[in-house]
């Protein structure tokens, strides 16, 4: 099975969260549901465009390969390893988020302090780890695709922040 679809889905979810993070801390109003939604959609839009880069990179790798079937298999191996790495991270984030929203304030602080806060800091490291396992499982072409995917994921927050939220609202 190709890991492309789950990877794209995780990439899009991550882009929406990146939009939120780009906005968070820039709006001191109390009621801001609409602003949060707008920021997430901006992240989604920018992230969707940037995700085209790894997709096109993968296509280029396949089109230029002498043995396309083997190149495809190696990309699938690398992509699957990359997916497992970021899916584990996504699961930890999802559990922390669920705990944060569902539990009372004391336990939700715990979910923030040992979950969501450190996980934000770990995000670039997880992407780097994903690239490493992609290299190990699928060779250099997989590293190339996963590195462009990681760079796209990291760039989304920066771009949305610079474009829309460089100053407090």
């Amino acid at each position, binding site marked *: 099975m190709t890991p492309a679809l789950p990877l794209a889905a995780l990439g899009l979810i991550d882009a929406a969260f990146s939009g939120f993070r780009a906005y968070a801390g820039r709006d001191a109003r109390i009621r801001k549901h609409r602003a949060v939604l707008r920021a997430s959609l901006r992240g989604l839009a920018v992230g969707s465009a940037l995700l085209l880069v790894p997709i096109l990179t993968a296509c280029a790798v396949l089109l230029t390969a002498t043995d396309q079937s083997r190149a495809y298999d190696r990309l699938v191996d690398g992509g699957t390893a990359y997916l497992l790495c970021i899916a584990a991270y996504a699961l930890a984030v999802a559990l922390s988020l669920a705990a944060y929203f569902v539990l009372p304030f004391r336990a939700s*602080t715990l979910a923030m302090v040992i979950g969501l*806060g450190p996980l934000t800091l770990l995000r670039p490291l997880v992407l780097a780890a994903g690239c490493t396992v992609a290299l190990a499982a699928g060779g250099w072409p997989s590293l190339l695709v996963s590195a462009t995917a990681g760079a796209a994921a990291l760039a989304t927050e920066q771009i949305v922040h610079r474009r829309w939220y460089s100053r407090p609202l």
Partner: protein
Amino acid sequence: MPQFEISDLITVTDPRSLRRAPVRRDDVLRTLAEAGNRRAARIVGTLPVDGDGVLDPAAVDRLLIGVHTELQRLSEEMRIGERVLHLLGPLLEAIRETAEPGARLRLVDIGCGLGYLVRRLAATRALGPGVELIGVDLDAALAGEAARLAQAEGLDCRFVHANAFDLPEAATVYVSTGVLHHFRGPALAEFLQAQAASSAVAFCHFDIAATPITPLGAWVFHRARMRHPLGRHDGVASARRAHSDETLLHAADIPGIRPLVYEPRGLANPFCTTLRPLLGIRPHLEEPFRRAMGRASRRLVGPERFAA
């Protein structure tokens, strides 16, 4: 070595006249150099100055408003509103029980910054009707921005530019969040004594819980959530400056006041309690307050817990 927060050094307001004093960047740099804080000096070194080396007040205000906006995100994520309400709800219940029927209550948030707590209480009407909400801050730009934000959302609260040691607004209850550690040495007791000498029946000041993991937690959080290096620096510095439970209870040991700490060290999981309050209540309120708190009142302790 003294620990400084950059924001305390780059804006100076005369506590009496409330006028802002010009701040020379070199003076701040010298203070930081003497404290051996090169990182803070590097941050201050990037701030713009005029021809006389005085920090540009408009740029400083913009910076502090930006940093406080990010700080509000931390308050939101740590659910400070709910944390405060968890105590203020029962406290107001006890006050209403002992006050004249229909008496109007006034809550004053001292050192309110952008007034997140007051604006949130106003937006959610969580304290019920008949509670006037006021925020005060020594920093005119922050108090002004708090007022602008409240007006933009049509919130029923107001903000005043004033000094915590010379408060123009009489209150039923004084509260604060993240302010106590700014008052060092005798200033901490003076701050509380001024409220004890007023007609207020209680104060409830939340500040960073001093535990061994606090500075590390503050580093992680400010690194993950704050963008400007000043916010990151001051977040960790304030965690290092947090007062211990004993220091707080000692400072609040004032005649006519029953000092209490909620969730002190040893009675709370440090990962769950990032900010905890020092309370000072008129003695007749203790019984109804504990009753209104229910089982949670077990975590409310006085100086006797720390007596040798």
